Every structure is written in C-alpha cells, then in structure tokens.
C-alpha cells in the first residue's frame, strides 16, 4: 500500500500561509481536530510545521504573556525542516519512520517540496484495518 492511498488531501488538514500569526494557526489546528499545522508559502511550498507538542514545550519554557505569544508569527515557532514523505512511498516504510521518530503526522510533498497531503497515523491505520 502506498501513502497516497491513505493520506489526507488538501482541505482535509490544517494549512496556513507564512504570514499567519500563531493564534490563527492554532485555531486552524482546532478546526480540524489535528495536532499539526503545515505552513506553506504563496506557492504552496512547505516551509515548516507546528505540532501540539511544540506548543506544549514552548509554554513550559517561555514566560511571556499569552497575548504576546498569540501575536507572534507562526513561522517563528515552527519546525523548519520537518520529517516528510512522498505519495509513492510505501506505507509500511513510512509508518516505521513515524514510529521511530514518535510522530503521529507526516506532511506529504512532491519532489519540489510542494505540500500535497498529510499522513495521519489514525487515518492510515483505520484504512488498513478496513
């Protein structure tokens, strides 16, 4: 089975543009109920991701007011070089990679690093079990 058979496609997971502030990025995550948001430039190239865990670690580390945190650019809090996978990758290989790195979500990109989907572990397993 390939990644493309189980991945979430555009409009099924949170994506924001690079000028988005953190508050809006978090709202986008909340809208989809997923613990990740992908940040892309105007050409849909993946620039970074933010996960629930990143935010949790920030909250534990920094003491600045929430209002200041919210208005920061999301990109200033993102992981710039996240793990990625390709739509033609074998699902088994990618799930192994996710397990090894303890991540639940993996952006799917094309060869130019354009974002085309998201592999969400729960979704993937559900499809396999069916």
């Amino acid at each position, binding site marked *: 089975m390939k990644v493309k058979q189980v991945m979430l496609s555009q409009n099924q997971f949170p994506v924001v543009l690079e000028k988005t502030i953190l508050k809006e990025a978090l709202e986008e995550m909340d809208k989809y109920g997923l613990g990740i948001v992908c940040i892309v430039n105007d050409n849909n190239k993946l620039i970074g991701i933010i996960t629930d865990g990143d935010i949790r670690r920030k909250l534990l*580390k*920094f003491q600045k*007011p929430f*209002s*200041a945190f919210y*208005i920061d650019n999301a990109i*200033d*809090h993102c992981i710039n070089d996240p793990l990625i996978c390709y739509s033609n990758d074998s699902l088994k290989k990618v799930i192994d990679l996710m397990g090894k790195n303890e991540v639940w979500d993996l952006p799917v990109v094309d060869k130019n690093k354009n974002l085309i989907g998201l592999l969400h572990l729960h979704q993937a397993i559900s499809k396999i079990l069916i």
Partner: protein
Amino acid sequence: MKKNKIIEIGYGEVKKFSVGGDLPLVFVGGPCAIENRDHALYMADKISKICSKVGINWIYKSCYDKDCRSSPKSFHGVGLIEGLKILDEVRNSFGVPVVSDFSDPSWAKATGEICDVIQVPAYLCRQTSILKAAAKTNRPILLKKGQFMSPWNMKNSCRKIESFGNDKIILAERGTFMGYNMLVNDMTSFPIMASTGYPVCYDATHSVQLPTSMGNISGGQREFIPNLVRSAVANGINLLFMETHDNPSKALSDSNTVLDIKYLENILVQAQMIHQTRIEILNKYGEDNIHKEKE
C-alpha cells in the same frame, strides 16, 4: 523576526533620506501645534540650524488640528487648510520633510498630499478607518503606539495597514498608562516592536506626559527627557521624536512636556553618540542571543 525594513523619507524637492536598520538616527521635531505661520517658520529655522550643526537628518513635526485636547477651551489648532499651507511653506523654505497627524479619515488625503510622512495619533492607533485612510495616502506612516496598547499588539495595526496596501510603517513608543494620569516607559517595547521588522521611534516628550493630571490639561515631567532618550537610543530606536519650542511655558499645546530648544543640541549629540556606539557594540559582540524563541 523579520528582516529590518528600510523606509525612504521625502518626496519632491526636500532632502531625502532613509530610516531603519543600522542607518543613522533621525530626529523628528517641532512645536506640538502649528501656532501661526511666523512661529512655524521661526522654529523650523532654529531646529534646522541645530540639526545641520550636529549632522542629523530630521523631519519637521507640527499639527494643524489638536483633536485630543482635554479641555474645550484649549487651543485646537489653525485647521487643515491653513495648517497644510504653513507646512508646505516650511517644506519649501527649508527643504525639510514634514509630518503631521490627522484625526478624521477625511483629512488624510489632503495631509498626504503635502506631508512626507503621515502620523496616526496614539489614541486612534487601532481605528480601522484611520489606518485605512493613512495607508491610502501611500506615504510612510508614523504609527504611535496607544498608551493602552501592548507593544506586541501593535502588530494588529500593522497588519491592518499592510492589508490596505502600505508597508511603510514606523512604530512609535510614547509611554504606557499605569493606572490613572500616569505613564511609564517600558524599554522592552523597542525590541518587541522592532521584531516586526519596521523602524522604531521614541517620542520622548509625550512619554513624560502625566495625562490630564492638571484636571483639564496634561502635566509632565520633562526633567526626565534626557534620561529616557539615552535609554531608548541604547535600546535600538531608529528615530527620536521630541516636540520642541522656543518658549515652553507659552506653548499653545503640551506646554508641560515640550522640550526647550536650548537643550536640543545637547540631547541630539548624546543620542547620536549612543546610537553609533550601540551599532559598534553589536557589530563587535554580535546581536543579543540569550533567549531565542527557536532554541
């Protein structure tokens, strides 16, 4: 953090220069209100000579309509038409860029046609109609931080201005309310506002204001202006704003806070030295890096 934005000041025949980044400090000054033509020209001449002597680029600041006065009896200004005529004469006579604020969206277009920089008053710094009108002039915008605003929330006002197609913004600190009739100066606001990438200005004379502390007018503690200027410049401002008058006790607006022109040269010289030293220190020892968000 965004890359430092450099903003070009001046159009037409005035002296043009850039502000932002590591460029030299720029002075913004003049009487709070335009009192009359002769006084405006007299002050422009005096300040021009001082700025020329100390070698600092400057912008003449004076307002034609003081809409935020505490008392209905206070001097309100010479009005839009007369005021802009005087500012135009200052521009043409001294070749200096001018800035004035506006308190009604309908005044913006005319103000932008004469002024090199258009100022948004602190009390109106988040009003969408004002920000839109300022943006549409296509002039650089001196955006005062409201006394009630956190420095980080000024980004919302910047985003509004950007959404109307203007990204020539200068963010100005002018004190923050602490309780009633009292302002404090938070030096962390400079690096916070500078993190937007826009140049940052310190309005030293309004920052020492004690708003409406005299019942129907504002008081102030101008004795602290030099101290606060030194602190602000050391914290990375790009422009220094000080309302200046030849006879503060007789000034028609903000008489308790305007700087007596006899102190201007001394303060500007110190400010320039600190500005230059700060740049040299950062070049030698590197940017502050003790608490990066991305650690």
